[in-house]
């Protein structure tokens, strides 16, 4: 069973190492204290009593000697008795010293033993002869014995002093030894503390590194690798793996799941990036959050240039007011589908698009952004314009064709009817065009027709309409005129300008033109009538010799 099976156990393991270190220091301190206690106990039970008894015995012996001396010199028996009484204190003291010293001090034992014997011998003699001498009141009667006793006593005193000195030395030695022991203990404790501390540091670091830091570092590497898009190997799981290992496994599992999701997202991104339509996602503040490739191709901006830019700036200037109102609608949840709008790209040219937009919401209902789709309809619009041109204009001369002319004529008729202003309709047919066409070919004929159209346009105002109705037939609508005189003046200018020679294939050719003019009047009810009248006038001009104009009058009908 792995004892480091989870983080709690690992922390406990580190704590236990520190605790063991503390225990080692405590045990060392306890040992040191026990050593000191042994010394103090020994000193308290043996050495100090021995010393104090030695000192006491020495002083008692001196006192006894003094009593004897006083007794003998003064002849006082009482003093001698008192001296003898002191023996009752000295002898037990010496016995106790012998017992104390017996076990513990081999070197002192013989000295104290002999001291006791010496004292006992002395006392046996002293107690006898001193008393007898005092009783006889003649110290000199026992001169030999007393002289002998004096020598014994001197020797005894010297021995007592020596023993007392040795006891003093013993005590000093004890304290000196204890000082040394304390110094040794201090060093010993310091070494034990440092060693324990170092061991604790090394072991705790090793444990923390092996069990926590390295596994966490592996997870960090996994996260870094995942962040860089690398494939992460499945962590090896062992039985009884701890929370870190579980975390690694969970992370690996999460990355695997995310990888699956990421594949789907790539797929979606791929689709979005490869779709032909532009997709722009806006933030709620209408700045651009992200775009697809189609948008970049459409606008010729880089992704970096677009992201963060306000969406208004990519709309054509003319549409900005509309855009603002539209986006207010988006923010309120409105949807726009396929309206025509104009983006503005890098070259600031308007790009026609079908624009759709819809708001995006977070699950809690808050606005997340706006999704904007746009299809480039430039080609479509061009084709449509082409069709529109073909439907309303003459391809050869670029002049409005019959359709457009009649359209404008109808509008002019109704406006004239409404506002009562005067307008005129010219119906024109080239003279001698067919021979020119036959002689120089259709291309030359087309060229002549283009030149005629140009000259006609030069002759009239911009507000007037020059139209080719077909073949060599033209029509002019003078939308507003003052009077018939203005019409005649314009007709004269037309005859003039058309009458100027055309340079065709190096030849100067003269073309004429016959003009039928119909002025508006209150009687005219339709455009067809006007055309018919003008046509009639034109044919009248033809009939009258061509290259002239005829103003329609009801008499011609």
């Amino acid at each position, binding site marked *: 069973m792995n004892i480091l099976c989870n983080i709690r156990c690992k922390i406990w393991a580190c704590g236990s190492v520190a605790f063991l270190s503390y225990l080692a220091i405590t045990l060392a301190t306890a040992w040191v204290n026990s050593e000191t206690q042994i010394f103090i106990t020994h000193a308290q039970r043996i050495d100090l009593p021995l010393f104090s008894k030695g000192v006491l015995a020495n*002083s008692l012996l*001196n*006192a006894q000697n*003094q*009593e*004897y*001396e*006083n007794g*003998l*010199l*003064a002849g006082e028996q009482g003093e001698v008795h008192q001296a003898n009484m002191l023996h009752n204190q000295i002898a037990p003291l010496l016995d106790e010293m012998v017992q104390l010293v017996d076990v513990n001090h081999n070197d002192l034992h013989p000295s104290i033993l002999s001291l006791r014997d010496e004292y006992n011998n002395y006392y046996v003699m002293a107690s006898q002869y001193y008393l007898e001498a005092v009783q006889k009141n003649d*110290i*000199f009667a026992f*001169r*030999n014995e*007393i*002289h*002998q*006793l*004096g*020598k*014994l*006593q*001197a020797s005894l005193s010297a021995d007592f002093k020596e023993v007392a000195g040795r006891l003093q030395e013993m005590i000093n030695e004890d304290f000196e030894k204890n000082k040394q022991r304390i110094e040794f203990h201090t060093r010993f404790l310091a070494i034990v503390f440092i060693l324990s501390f170092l061991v604790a540091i090394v072991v705790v670091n090793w444990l923390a590194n092996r069990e926590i830091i390295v596994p966490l570092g592996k997870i960090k590497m996994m996260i870094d690798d995942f962040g860089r898009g690398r494939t992460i190997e499945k962590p090896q799981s062992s039985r009884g793996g701890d929370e870190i290992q579980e975390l690694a496994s969970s992370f690996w599992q999460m990355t695997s799941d995310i990888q699956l999701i990421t594949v789907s997202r790539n797929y979606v991104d791929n689709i979005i990036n490869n779709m032909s339509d532009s997709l722009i996602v806006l933030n709620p503040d209408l700045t651009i959050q992200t775009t697809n490739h189609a948008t970049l191709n459409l606008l010729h901006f880089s992704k970096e240039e677009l992201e963060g830019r306000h969406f208004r700036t990519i709309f054509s200037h003319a549409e900005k007011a509309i855009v603002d109102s539209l986006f207010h609608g988006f923010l309120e949840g409105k949807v726009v589908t396929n309206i025509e709008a104009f983006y503005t790209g890098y070259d600031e040219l308007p790009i026609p698009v079908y624009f759709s937009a819809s708001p995006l919401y977070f699950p809690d209902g808050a606005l997340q952004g706006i999704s904007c789709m746009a299809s480039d309809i430039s080609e479509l619009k061009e084709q449509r314009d082409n069709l529109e041109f073909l439907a309303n204009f003459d391809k050869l001369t670029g002049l409005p064709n019959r359709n457009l002319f009649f359209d404008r004529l109808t509008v002019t008729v109704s406006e004239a009817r409404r506002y009562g202003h005067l307008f005129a309709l010219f119906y024109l047919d080239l003279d001698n065009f067919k021979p020119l066409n036959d002689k120089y070919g259709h291309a030359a004929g087309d060229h002549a027709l283009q030149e005629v159209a140009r000259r006609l346009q030069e002759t009239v105002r911009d507000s007037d309409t020059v139209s080719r109705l077909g073949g060599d037939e033209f029509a002019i609508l003078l939308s507003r005129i003052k009077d018939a005189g203005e019409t005649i003046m314009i007709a004269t200018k037309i005859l003039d300008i058309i009458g100027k020679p055309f340079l065709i294939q190096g030849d100067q050719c003269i073309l004429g033109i016959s003009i039928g003019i119909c002025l508006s009047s209150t009687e005219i009810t339709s455009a067809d009538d006007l055309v018919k009248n003008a046509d009639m006038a034109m044919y009248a001009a033809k009939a009258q010799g061509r290259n002239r104009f005829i103003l329609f009058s009801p008499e011609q009908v």
Partner: protein
Amino acid sequence: MMLTLKKRTGGLILALWLFAVGPAAGATAQDDFVLVVNSENDLTTINRKDAELIFLKKQRSWPDGKNISVVINENPRIYDSFSHTVLRRSSQQFLVFRKQMLFRGQGMPPLTLKTDQDVVAFVGEHIGSISYVSPDAVTLAVKVVSILQ
């Protein structure tokens, strides 16, 4: 310890008292004794101080190296006089001195004789001996030694 000190102090005071009162108590005529040595001894005079040292056994041999044998004459008529004159202390003090010397084992006390006759006889027989006797007890066996003050 204190007890011992008191006892010692008491002993010292006693000795000083004896030393102080001694000469006043033993004041006697100076010429009622003479110092005597063996007749074969060459000594004729002696300084008082030398005599004191000899009797206090602080000098224990003659100039020729022979041991000095001191004899204390306890004849009460001259004992005090001798003690005061030669030893400059009372006879009691001298006695205490001798007792202390004996008690402390510092040396055997001198021979003590009771009468002049015993002293003269002893000195006459022992060449290295010295003592003191009444002037009228002097015989040819001994020689009187003059004391120089």
